[in-house]
């Protein structure tokens, strides 16, 4: 109870000092700050143009193409209502690949955040040993997702190192992790998590180290043990890092493509066929309208899932 009160007061203190730093008080009247708002546009203009042309315009165009008959053979791009979505549903592509994409994203997000939190907590102090391990776990981050895919395709092969190890206990174990419908999707999602865990871990370490020492000491003086200090003090204070990591990993995994290309290519059957994998085949067949519809589906997934999630997690941060 006491720690709660202490943390609340410390938060409000840091907030007010942050406001001072941010110049929320007393900014009016500063000469440059004022004048910049007039010429500021010129400094922001290049960024606005680049994002406007190469990010915003394609998003708007996609709203048109997703509902159009555009193919290699069409002479003009015409509105065709929901035909693209209807044909994707008829062929059994749409809901199946949405399911694959969401499952992939959830597995990758949960694995990545749980493992990163544990690693971050054990590597939180900046010692030489920890520096070594932080760098070591960061190595997979540097690899391209494609390379990560090939590496794990080797490790998970029926006669690969993982099964060789399991065979020490279960002789002759030769499960095809990526070739069996029951394990392929989870395997590729975990490869994705493996590739990014080093980065998520560093973000959590930054979060853990931003928890004030006084607060932790207060908790220990009040008789909290390590487990309690973590769950009652550190974890709640980690809220911004948690929001950031959960959202970034989930949203990133909705665009699942690279690791799948290097490992299963969408198979076995259609068990790892994510939205972007079908987009690729539709593009290859010249079905640009249906391809755009699949791209729009990824965007909608992000909007429907990520924005409420950011809102919820932010509110949770505010409550703590």
């Amino acid at each position, binding site marked *: 109870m006491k720690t709660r009160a202490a943390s609340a007061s410390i938060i409000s203190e840091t907030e007010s000092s942050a406001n001072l730093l941010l110049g929320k008080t007393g900014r009016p009247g*500063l000469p440059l700050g004022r004048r910049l708002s007039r010429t500021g546009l010129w400094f*922001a203009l290049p960024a606005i143009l680049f994002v406007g042309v190469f990010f915003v315009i*394609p998003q708007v165009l996609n709203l048109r193409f997703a509902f159009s008959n555009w193919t290699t053979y069409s002479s003009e791009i015409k509105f065709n209502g929901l035909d693209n979505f209807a044909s994707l549903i008829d062929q059994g592509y749409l809901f199946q690949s949405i399911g694959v994409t969401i499952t992939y994203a959830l597995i990758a997000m949960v694995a990545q955040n749980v493992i990163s939190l544990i690693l971050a907590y054990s590597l939180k102090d900046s010692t030489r040993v920890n520096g070594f391990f932080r760098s070591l776990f960061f190595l997979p981050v540097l690899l391209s997702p494609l390379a990560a895919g090939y590496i794990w395709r080797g490790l998970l092969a029926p006669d690969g*190192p993982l099964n060789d190890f399991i065979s020490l206990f279960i002789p002759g174990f030769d499960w095809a992790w990526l070739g069996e419908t029951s394990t392929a999707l989870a395997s590729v999602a975990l490869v994705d998590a493996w590739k990014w865990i080093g*980065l998520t871990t560093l973000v959590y370490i930054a979060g853990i180290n931003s928890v004030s020492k006084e607060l932790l000491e207060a908790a220990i003086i009040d008789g909290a043990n390590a487990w309690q200090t973590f769950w009652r003090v550190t974890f709640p204070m980690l809220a911004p890092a948690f929001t950031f990591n959960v959202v970034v990993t989930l*949203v990133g995994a909705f665009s699942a*493509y690279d690791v799948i290309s290097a490992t299963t290519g969408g198979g076995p059957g259609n068990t790892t066929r994510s939205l972007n994998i079908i987009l690729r085949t539709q593009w290859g067949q010249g079905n640009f309208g249906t391809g755009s519809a699949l791209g729009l589906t990824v965007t909608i997934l992000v909007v429907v899932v990520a924005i409420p999630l950011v809102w919820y997690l932010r509110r949770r941060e505010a409550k703590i």
Partner: protein
Amino acid sequence: MKLRSTVFTRLRVIGLTLFAIPWVGIPIWMVIVNSFKTAGEAADLDLSLPKDWSVVENYMTVIVQGNYFQALGNSLLVSIPTILAVSLIGASAAWAFGRSRSKGLQFAFYVIALSMLLPPTLIPTIFLLRQMALDGTTLGYILVLIGTRMGVVVFLATGFVRSMPVDLEDAAAIDGASRFQVFVRIILPLLAPVLFVGSVILIITVWGDFFFAQFLIPGAGRETLPLSLYSFANSSAQSLRWNLVFAHVVMSGLPLVLAFLFAQKRVVGGLTEGALKG
């Protein structure tokens, strides 16, 4: 108390080591040792040392048949302009967003921040590049990367600008420095640490990009390293030739790993200290 904490530290290091061996150690070992083997031996995918060493042959095949140096050059040609442009353009926009209270600029800031979250759309991007006669060109790919990866840098740097006191800028302005001079002499140096963190995140995603590269720069001459790895791995009709695939993984991973080894203190330090500002 002292004894207990040293016991804890030892246990922790042992635990971390036991985790790191299968997590990073064995994957790296498997890749390197198999990249030294002959095709037949590497097909077994085990962790033993090669009986027949085939180092030079394998790596020469990657360099010659895989067009390694061309792909490396293409990757540099894409990454370096992208990072320079995003850092400069992003920093100047962050200064404007951080200091201005104009509603229009605030709206632009939110749109750019949103571009971090929403996935860029592929097919309309190709359509747009086609209208500009830039589809399939390295320049078109670079422009798209600049426009779609700007968000992170703008977001991080704007947070940083807002936490900086304006005194320095004011003093310089009173001394008669122009807006542009203030930006180059004062703002850019102050933003250097956050731009470094942004560049690290950028280089990782740009260097490894496969999805967009596959659509925007198809064709042999412009291949970046991931595209080269993919076409190299799929060049044999049957199963993968693991010795060659792994040799390519080593060669295409090496530039970033080497750069990281030189700058690891700054990279890890920067990401653990500056990543979440703002």
